[in-house]
């Protein structure tokens, strides 16, 4: 594997949308956002702004994710970080992306000297962890911080330390006959682990899970019961 195109996600995408995969000129994008402080941090009051980049991925490995191929699409201003309202700022970008995905844009190919309809899809996002929490809407703090495991996790809060701990959450990923699973002394006291590894939802199930949730734009909401 040398390139994202060798990964499962890319191949799966090719299988699901063969008409998109047929033309190599269709662009696959990655979206990255990160906060930075444009002024000196120490003296003034904190000010952070959030650039959002798009970068195409169907390039050769040495051209991929290099400076000439990163496009600043929007800049989210404001002295505070956007948190959940990032969805509102990203709405124009999402509209553009949807246009690119559904209809495509008429583009001139300078190499082939012809016009063609360019379509684009968004492959994934690149974030640090707090930004990931904002974009995905999955809270990345506290006990349910892991966006892969979601609520199916055995993290607990330490009584004295007051922090969430992931101690002894990893034995379930071992093979079923591994001796560590039976140990009652080296991990949590008097506890053996018999659970299998996590169940990772596929796209359809995830969409069914998320579809009913209200959007940020529809007004302020309280946290969902049992979450956040």
């Amino acid at each position: 594997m040398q390139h994202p195109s060798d990964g499962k996600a890319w191949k799966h995408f090719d299988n699901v949308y063969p008409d998109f995969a047929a033309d190599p000129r269709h662009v696959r994008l990655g979206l990255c956002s990160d906060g930075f402080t444009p002024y000196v941090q120490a003296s003034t009051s904190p000010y952070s702004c959030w650039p959002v980049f798009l970068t195409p991925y169907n390039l050769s490995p040495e051209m991929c994710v290099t400076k000439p191929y990163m496009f600043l699409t929007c800049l989210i201003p404001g002295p505070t970080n956007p948190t959940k309202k990032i969805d509102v700022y990203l709405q124009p970008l999402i509209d553009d992306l949807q246009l690119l995905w559904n209809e495509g844009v008429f583009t001139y190919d300078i190499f082939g000297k012809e016009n063609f309809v360019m379509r684009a899809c968004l492959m994934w996002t690149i974030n640090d962890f707090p930004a990931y929490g904002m974009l995905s809407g999955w809270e990345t703090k506290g006990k349910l911080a892991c966006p892969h495991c979601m609520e199916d996790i055995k993290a607990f809060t330490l009584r004295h330390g007051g922090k969430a701990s992931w101690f002894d959450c990893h034995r379930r990923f071992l093979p079923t006959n591994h001796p560590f699973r039976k140990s009652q002394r080296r991990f949590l006291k008097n506890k053996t682990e018999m659970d299998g590894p996590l169940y990772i939802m596929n796209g359809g199930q995830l969409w069914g899970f998320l579809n009913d949730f209200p959007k940020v734009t529809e007004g302020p909401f309280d946290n969902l019961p049992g979450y956040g």
Partner: protein
Amino acid sequence: MHIEKNFFDNVFNIVMDVKGKTKDNHKVRLDLAELCVRGDLELIQLPNGKLAKPKANYTFSPKDVKSVFKWMTELRMPDGYASNIARCANPEKGTLHGMKSHDCHVFMECLLPIAFRSLPDFVWSALAELSRFFKDLCSNTLRMDDVVRMQENIPIILCKLERIFPPGFFDSMEHLVIHLPMEVLHGGPVHYRWMYPFER
């Protein structure tokens, strides 16, 4: 990328026993006494009423810390490979400062097994396996079966670490490592998806 950096910070702080940053403090030991069977690490009541923290086998003695920092201040890196790590080390205070995430990446992958060689063997081997894991994960070219093997290995490595370190050490970053091979399997090599180019 941030997972690797935070993991490195935690490991470094706890092994070098950096004051104020280590995850091996009194409260962690109290939790440990409740949750685990590890008599040798529980706090001891001294005759004057105070609680003493026995030295754990995964931390360095002050003498070892000094010698590791001395080694670090003498480090010379190839040109353009990493920033001058020797300048980041502060032997008097026993801290690291100004480490960029790429420096953490280099330290985690290349220098960690060397720096922590004087730890007891079972601690060192677990940490070396972890460093090896990150090195494999971050390589330019990966083979599918290697990634599958890494996916099988990482729970074992983490469980080995769980046998050594106290519960307070395992925050979310330590847990997320377990999902990294799966992400590689789906998304391809990590350098296209980690934030190094964007942070610059």
